[in-house]
């Protein structure tokens, strides 16, 4: 069974602050995806990373994939209240098609 550890579980910050969320596994990911979920809705795909060391940027969000493809991070610069939500990392392992999700980071950005 593949396990993903995501940290922190909860994060409450003031508008304008920076933050980083981490996702780790003991196994190598074939691909890793970050999702954002709001209450009452399904997860929305933010980014997919597949190459070790890869860095992708989406406006104020920076996603990094570890060189060994066992970890990833999501960094948000100058957080805004609209960034509030549950951030989920999800990994694919080997040839399996299903995703294994972390337990999520509940982010609250206070105005």
């Amino acid at each position: 069974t593949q396990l993903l550890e995501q940290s922190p579980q909860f994060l409450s910050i003031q508008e304008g602050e920076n933050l980083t969320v981490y996702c780790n596994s003991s196994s190598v990911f074939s691909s890793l995806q970050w999702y954002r979920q709001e209450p009452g809705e399904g997860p929305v795909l933010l980014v997919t990373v597949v190459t070790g060391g890869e860095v992708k940027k989406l406006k104020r969000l920076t996603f990094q994939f570890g060189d060994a493809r066992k970890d990833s991070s999501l960094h948000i610069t100058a957080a805004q209240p609209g960034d509030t939500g549950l951030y989920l990392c999800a990994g694919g392992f080997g040839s399996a098609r299903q995703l294994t999700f972390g337990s999520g980071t509940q982010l609250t950005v206070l105005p």
Partner: protein
Amino acid sequence: GAGVSQTPSNKVTEKGKYVELRCDPISGHTALYWYRQSLGQGPEFLIYFQGTGAADDSGLPNDRFFAVRPEGSVSTLKIQRTERGDSAVYLCASSSTGGSYNEQFFGPGTRLTVL
């Protein structure tokens, strides 16, 4: 285009009853997934369809759970003799087999409450 749709959005049932949850994937997506999400947790895999066949049902918790996709598009998740522990949000996702790196697109979910 239209995203993944799921019906009903909410379902309240009594312990022991039978329920059906429906998923309509993105048009043209051949792969369809069911996940279950409990409060405060990430989604957990239940079953994956490639076309009409269940390619992997290893996540189904027991034989009360069953899913079908008879024409390779719409899928129905069926739960018999529901138990209070089945209460959760049931999410459906679809992906294009030829797409990049198995990117999955989720529907809004069905919130199931078993009283």
